[in-house]
Every structure is written in structure tokens, then in C-alpha cells.
């Protein structure tokens, strides 16, 4: 059974519409900008969404968070198509499966700041705002969906895994269509956290460069309407594996990464040689790029062009899997490889074919990698529908 990506909505630091993001991505632009907002006294390059978001005043208290606003802004871009799908199949036959790592934790940060000053939690705070399941709940509520609605939260692999999970629901005939993808929000929690791990770069990130020294955190949302209804881009396969190694360091041998990639290729029914573009996880930490590079080199050698687009969008953590799947979809439909803004001199010890600049290319299949904390690995294969 083939699964298709019928509609996509996206916002990130590159912009707030599919068209704007596509234009800027293929022009080699970056949305990363320096700011102290979440790191007082320390300027950091971050991939911030600067566009206005839908007002959350009309939402019930427990659903009010910036994270949900980002998700709803992406939903607005595809709303008519989703409504039509619900009308067609019935509210109980459509699901919502999303990935997030932050959910509304930024709201909890704010609430505990008020508590520290005033001794009480603000009335504007509700536990539901930080609940991992919140983005799925708010979308289901807005759309009147009564099918399965839940969230996958596995750090940086969250939204790729959500898309695989959505595919399983349709395969098992529990749903006819699923609103899937992911969303994440900039907050002090992740900025301080990744800084504490010394994973954050003070400069624009430099994926797979010999000079790479860490990530630029980003935020954003990407949503897909997935179903069996044919469309231009198909989700051909997915593969998942765990490292069983360490909570915050990847297995340096890239073992789990390799298993995930191979499983995705197998499920897609293609050989490595049939992949035309690899969107690497490519966070620009020394450890990730080396480990991922090992796995990719072992399977693809230096034949398949690949790169990380995190220099354009920032590392959007829980939303990365979905945002980068959408980058792959754009590459497939436009027949163009994106470049890797910010990458300087390449690391010669990673022997893959790294695509530095945008280039027109006829693409049939693309692979997208998402490897997260706790050794959670997920790879997706997207393809041009026949």
C-alpha cells in the first residue's frame, strides 16, 4: 500500500509559507539570526520564527502555548484540504500524530518565574500547556477529529517517528488519513540545556565542516496530510533503530543509524544506489556528523549527494524530522538539490559526497535522517510518485 503526502504546511526561520521557504531555501539563504532572547548576556545564532502567529485567546486555557500557535499556523495553510478529507472519510477515520520535544515547556518556565517572584503560579498557566500530547489534542479539537490523536516525543527524532507511526495507522486501516508532522518552540530550557552539554555553537553552524563546533537551535512546524490518495510525493519507507549506547552521545560507530537507514531502504524496496539525495541529520556537532558520516559512507560511499539543511533552518529538534522531510519533498518536486549555507571547509575524514551548493538534478528518491537523544534513530525515504 503506497502512502502519499497530499498537502504540506510549514513555518520556520526561513518564513511562514511553503512558497517563501522554498524560494529562500533554494536561493541558499539562511533564517538563522543572532539574539540574546533566551541567553541573556550571550548572543546566540538561533532559527527563530519571526512571523505573526494566530492569536491563542480563543483557545481553551489548557491549549494556549506558542508551540500550539506554531502548529495551528501550519495547519491554517492546509486547512481546507484537511476539512475536505474529514468530510470525505468521517471524523473517526482521520488521526493526528505529531512529534514534539518541547511542547509548551516555555509556558512552564514563565509560570515558575512568576512563582519565584510572587509565590503563586499564574492563573494563565495550565499543566495541559506543557503536556507532550498537547499539539495533537489542539489540532484534533480544532478539526473535530475523533480518530487516534497522540504525540511522539523522542527528542530530535520525534517528528520523523510520528510520520512512520501515522503510516502504520493507515496501513492497519485504523485511519484513512492522518495529519502528521511536528512542531517545536525556542525556549530557555533547550538553549540552556544544549549549552550545558557544550553542543551549541556561538557562530552560524557549520555542518560536516572540519571546523564544526555545535548546533544552532531553531523552531518551527511542518504538517502533512498523509493518506492513500495519490499525490506528487510518496512516503516510500521508514526505518527505526536504537543505539543502546548513551543518553546524549550517539554511538560513534553509527551502528543504530545504519540499521535505521537500511530498514528504510528495505521497506521502500530500493537499493542504496537508487537514492538521489540524502538530507542528513547533520547537526554540526563533532560527534553526530562523524557517527552519521560513518553510516552514510558505509552505505552510499561518495556516490550519493547529501547535506544538512540545518544551516538554513536551524536545528528544530522535535520538528526537524518533519521540516526536513518537507525539504526532501521540495527537492523532489522542484528537481533541485538544496545547498548547505554556512558549511565551510569540509571534514576530510567524512568520505561522503557533500553537496555544498544548490544544483538542479532529476531526483526520484530522497532519504531523510533524524537521530535523537537516547539513541533514537529514524530514517524516511520519500519518492516521486509514479
Amino acid at each position, binding site marked *: 500500500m503506497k502512502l502519499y503526502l497530499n498537502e504540506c504546511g510549514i513555518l520556520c526561520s526561513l518564513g511562514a509559507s511553503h512558497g517563501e521557504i522554498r524560494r529562500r531555501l533554494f536561493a541558499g539563504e539562511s533564517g538563522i539570526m543572532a539574539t540574546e532572547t533566551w541567553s541573556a548576556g550571550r548572543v546566540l545564532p538561533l532559527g527563530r520564527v519571526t512571523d505573526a502567529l494566530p492569536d491563542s485567546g480563543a483557545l481553551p486555557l489548557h491549549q494556549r502555548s506558542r508551540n500550539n500557535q506554531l502548529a495551528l499556523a501550519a495547519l491554517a495553510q492546509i486547512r481546507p484540504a484537511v476539512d475536505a478529507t474529514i468530510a470525505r472519510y468521517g471524523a*473517526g477515520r482521520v488521526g493526528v500524530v505529531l512529534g514534539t520535544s518541547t511542547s509548551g515547556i516555555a509556558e512552564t518556565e514563565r509560570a515558575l518565574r512568576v512563582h519565584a517572584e510572587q509565590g503563586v503560579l499564574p492563573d494563565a498557566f495550565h499543566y495541559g500547556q506543557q503536556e507532550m500530547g498537547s499539539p495533537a489534542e489542539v489540532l484534533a479539537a480544532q478539526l473535530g477529529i475523533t480518530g487516534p490523536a497522540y504525540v511522539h516525543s523522542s*527528542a530530535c527524532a520525534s517528528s520523523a517517528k510520528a510520520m512512520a507511526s501515522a503510516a502504520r495507522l493507515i496501513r492497519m486501516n485504523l485511519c484513512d488519513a492522518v495529519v502528521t508532522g511536528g512542531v517545536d518552540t525556542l525556549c530557555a530550557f533547550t538553549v540552556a540545556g544544549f549549552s550545558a552539554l557544550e553542543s551549541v555553537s556561538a557562530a552560524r553552524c557549520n555542518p560536516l565542516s572540519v571546523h564544526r563546533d555545535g548546533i544552532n537551535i531553531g523552531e518551527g512546524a511542518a504538517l502533512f496530510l498523509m493518506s492513500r490518495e495519490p499525490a506528487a510525493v510518496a512516503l516510500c519507507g521508514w526505518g527505526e533503530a536504537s543505539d543502546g549506547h548513551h*543518553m546524549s552521545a550517539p554511538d560513534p560507530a553509527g551502528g543504530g543509524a545504519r540499521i535505521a537507514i537500511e530498514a528504510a531502504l528495505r521497506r521502500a524496496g530500493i537499493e542504496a544506489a537508487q537514492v538521489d539525495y540524502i538530507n542528513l541529520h547533520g547537526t554540526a556537532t563533532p560527534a553526530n556528523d562523524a557517527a552519521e558520516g560513518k553510516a552514510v559512507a558505509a552505505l552510499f560511499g561518495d556516490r550519493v549527494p547529501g547535506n544538512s539543511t540545518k544551516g538554513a533552518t536551524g536545528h528544530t529538534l522535535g520538528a526537524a524530522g518533519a521540516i526536513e522531510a518537507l525539504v526532501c519533498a521540495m527537492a523532489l518536486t522542484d528537481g533541485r538539490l538544496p545547498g548547505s549555507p554556512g558549511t565551510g571547509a569540509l571534514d576530510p575524514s567524512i568520505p561522503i559526497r557533500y553537496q555544498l551548493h544548490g544544483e538542479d538534478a532529476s531526483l526520484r528518491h530522497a532519504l531523510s535522517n533524524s537521530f535523537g537523544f537516547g539513541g533514537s534513530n529514524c530514517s524516511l525515504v520519500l519518492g516521486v510518485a509514479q
Partner: protein
Amino acid sequence: MNAPLTAYVTGIGLIAPGLPDWTTAAAVLRGEQPHVSAPTVLPVPELLPPAERRRASRVIKLSLGAGLDAVKQAGADASTLATVFAASGADGHNCHALCEQLAGEDRQISPTRFHNSVHNAAAGYWGIATRAMAPCQVIGAFDASFGAGLLDALAQVAVDGQPVLLIAYDSEYPAPLHAKRDTPDCGAVALLLSPGAEGALGAITVAPTTAAAEPLAEASLESLRGAIPAMRALPLLRRVARADAGAVVLDYLAPMQLQVAWQPC
């Protein structure tokens, strides 16, 4: 057309207030002994390397304990199993500590606290303890987390034809967040789900329903069912403990509930 999801249950684990393991819980569910309310007892995670074992949080001990009990009952090899972790919150104490620190000027948070704050921390430690490299799903769906985990696990069993260990667990938040999310204590249930009947306790078949979920007759168990999201599984476990074929309706995500049929082997 709705296709019901089905799998065999080959192992069960349970840790809850007054119910330190599945053996005790089964006896209580059969009415052989009363449910004595008591704080949840968390086992020491022997499988973790010493440093991680010393630092293991409540949710790590909870999820590892319940999961390993299910694996042991089935005589399975944890290192080979795909897993689904389903939880409403993650580590409430850790989350609180980090947010409290961030509420001040000090941004030098502990890197260990940070990597332990992700929703999939328990899953990550499971992988380290068991060396499992199979896929691991980590799900959150508020009070419906058990049901969401069950659906995803059964779909994986069907699609991939491999056993899947479901571990649903929840823990408490300290004050002041406790006032906004009042889960009272730790509770977890683990089910090892298999495509094959060999060594199984019975088979479950799950389908969505709009019928209302059934409360438990025993007041203290009904209180657990409502207070700890993972304990929404209790009506099913009651049938399992009593080897009582038939169906129950479990609270899932209103207006949808899950009808679960149990057929002992």
C-alpha cells in the same frame, strides 16, 4: 472499515501504589487479598551500570522495573525487543528542578539533568540497560497515553510481525506544579505483545468504540484507575487475572474509548 487489532500477551508487569508487582496485583484483582494503599515501591535497577544505577530517577526505576518483569515472565530476551513507552509526563521532579533553576539568573544547568528531561529518557536508559537496538516509540497523549501506546504497539506487531513490549508509566510532580497536575504517585503497566500464540497468557483484540468505559467495583482500585493514566488498563488486567474471557471498555480519548476483548489461552 475498521480492522480490529490483535496480539498475544506473553508477559505482564505492574508497579503501582500498594501493588508492588503483577503477582500481588493479580491476587488483588481476583479478590484474594485486599488492596492495601501504600506508596509505590520502586525496584533497584540492577541491569544499569553502577553509575547510572546510583543516579536512576523514579521514572527510570519504574519503567525498567515493570518492563523487565513482563520480559522475565515471558522468558524473553530484552535485547531483542521493540518497545513502546507511553507516558503523560516524563520525570516531574527533574522538570521542576530545571524550570525552577531557569526561573532565576543561573543558566548553568546540569547536562545530566537536561538529557534526563526528554520525554524519551526512560526509553534511552532501557536501551542502555538492555542493549536493545530494535525500534523504540515514545508516546504522550495526556490521560489517554496507555490507549495511544497500545494502538501504536499493536500496529507495530501487525505491520512488522515482531513482538513489542509496551510500557505505560506515569509519575508525580512536586509542588507547586503538583497542584496543576495531581498524579499522586508512580504507576506502570507493561505488556509483552507477540504475533504468535506460543507461551501466551491470552489474546487481546482492540477496536475503537463510543461505549462508555467501565469503572471498577473496588473503590481503591477505581481511584487508582482515575488518578494515574497508566492505570486505565486495570479493567483489562482484572479479566486477565481472573482468566475471564470477555470484553471491557477502557478510557482512551473522549469521545473514543477502546473495546478490548480478552481470550485466555
